[in-house]
């Protein structure tokens, strides 16, 4: 019935019980082929493709910092444009 049953999410046993994974950033790739799928659907099975455990102290969200700084720059630029060009640039405005 389900169109998308077992063909896609094929990995080994659930990896969240991390006995076979090492937190040292080493690559403990789980064998991807020929084992039973853990679930019937692909939804929520991102854990199955985890190749390494990264703990609290080893994780620096540098990519996040870059993304949010880009966002901040866009916000600032757009705000200045909207306020000083679009808004204050309009001819008729409420002055009293």
């Amino acid at each position, binding site marked *: *019935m*389900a*169109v*998308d*049953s077992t063909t*896609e999410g094929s990995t080994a*046993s*659930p990896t*969240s*019980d991390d006995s076979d994974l090492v937190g040292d950033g080493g*690559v403990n790739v789980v064998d991807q082929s020929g084992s039973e799928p*853990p*679930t*019937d*659907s*692909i*939804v*929520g*099975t*991102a*854990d*199955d*493709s*985890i*190749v*390494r*455990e*990264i*703990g*609290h102290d080893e*994780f620096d*969200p*540098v*990519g*996040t910092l*870059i*993304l*949010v700084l880009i*966002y901040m720059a*866009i*916000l600032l630029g*757009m*705000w200045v444009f*909207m*306020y000083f060009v*679009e*808004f204050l640039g*309009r001819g008729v*405005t*409420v002055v009293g």
Partner: protein
Amino acid sequence: MATASGNEPLFVERFPDEAAVARANLLVAFVALGIGAFFGLVQALHRTDILRIIDSADYYTLLTGHGVLLAIVFTIFGLAAFFHWATARSLDQPAVSSLFSWAWFGLMTTGSVLASVAILGGLVPSLGISADVLFTFYAPLQAHPIFYIGLAMFIVGTWLSGADWFLSYRAWREDNPNERIPLQAFMVLTTMIMWYIATVGVAVSVVFFLIPWSLGLIESVNPLLTRTLFWFFGHPIVYFWLMPAYMMWYTVLPKLAGGRLFSDPLARVVFLLFLLLSTPVGIHHQYLDPGIAEGFKFIAMTNTMFLLLPSLLTAFTAVASIEHGARQRGGEGYLSWLGALPWRDPAFAGMAFAGLIFAAGGFSGMINAGMNINYLIHNSLWVPGHFHMTVGTAVALTFMAAAYWLVPQLTGTKLYSRPIGLLQVVLWFVGMVFMSNAMHRAGLAGIPRRTAEPQYQNFDFVTPIGSIFELRVQIAFGGLLLFLSVVLFLFNMLLTAFGEKSERPVDEYLPEPLSGPEGSPRVLDNLGLWTGIAVVLVILAYTLPIAGIIQNGGGLFGGGLPVPVTVFPDVEIVKTVLAGAFAALAGVLL
């Protein structure tokens, strides 16, 4: 909380009653979504003059239906489903009484049906029932009493639902006197406290003014007062829509990405900030209202601006949690980890899209929040452009994406189609980009919102880039894609609900946060304290403006306002309905 994946029985097996209540709530939500989305399509084609199948006077009936069904029924029934699930899951115990759960569900549903009947009655003039007052129902526009009564029942239903979750919490607390409140339960409780405070405004407005007035018991109302009371509730309601989406972003999205929540304490801080700041900001919807001094508007603005803080913090925490997932999945580099995310999972992709659109909608919200720049966009099409990005995508798309992961847990059946789900969320994103972007631009050109035919005889709108015609086509095209997306979603959900049973249709396991609650001060969990501060802030922000409106604006009932010429031939029916409503209410309460 689950400790390991794979071995736990499914939610529906652990908590069959709670799963049934959540399913029922989702059913109502999705029915409302389908009807509301269809009305949305008709409106998008109508106001852009692409295709007009209805009378322009009926446009406002559909617009009211669209607003109420999507912004109130769909969102809040969705919230009830998610919160009911989250409370049982995170406290790991069933609701205190499933009869009580069904009672609030019944009351909310009855209220919604009554309000919808009043609205849709507008399409059948011979009925003499109508409620073409839009989602904001500003007096002196008047709706049939059934509309207000339905609304009141619905709100009482939401109060009882909150009581249900608080009772669960109390039972849990008895067994766990020294534990930190589990994160999802914490989110549910703080959101509901915010809702209790916020709904005071609309309850006073509806019960003391609008119902007596629509029944003819009082002659008139003070329009500015009921409008201010509406916005007392009308802004925090947007956070009521948003908080379940935030809950999903904090607690489920990291898992969907293959990672863990970056920081549990900051998530708590964010929800507390929303509790404190959501309500004393409503006057920012009234920047251009006469009768309110500029100082009060400025106070509302500073509160609103600081309300950006929890959302900006959420942006960081959510993206960091996703990045953690991507890196655990082998992602490398400064930005190329983005490619390592599980984009093929519609639950993940949908929430990621929702977050991205929310970032854009956040910007237009900042413009809305700015006091004097509000002249630029007030009541223009910019505003619906904004909230279709926030409630219409950040909330709606997150709900739909979450449904792909949650519904199988509630039904025990497999998701019918993962690729259709992915196509659906992509269609929503693309449709919303077209529609919302064009709406913002059209708003800057001066095109008003909530207007059946924004094509006028005396003048033309001008836009610096492109043409107004292009903008109209983009709005209509976007609306069409959004409607198709909803059709695909409902189709997928329907076939999922009747689909194949499976022991483990999704991976339910939610991993522990990277930084847990242990390190955070216990005062964060002191709900009484935060409630007290929130109430004080509301009193500070609203006492003087409301006193001023009553004193200067002709008293509580607006003395001397004309009684609108709306006569109801069926007062007897109204009385019967009213009596029935009270009986139902009494039945639930006793």
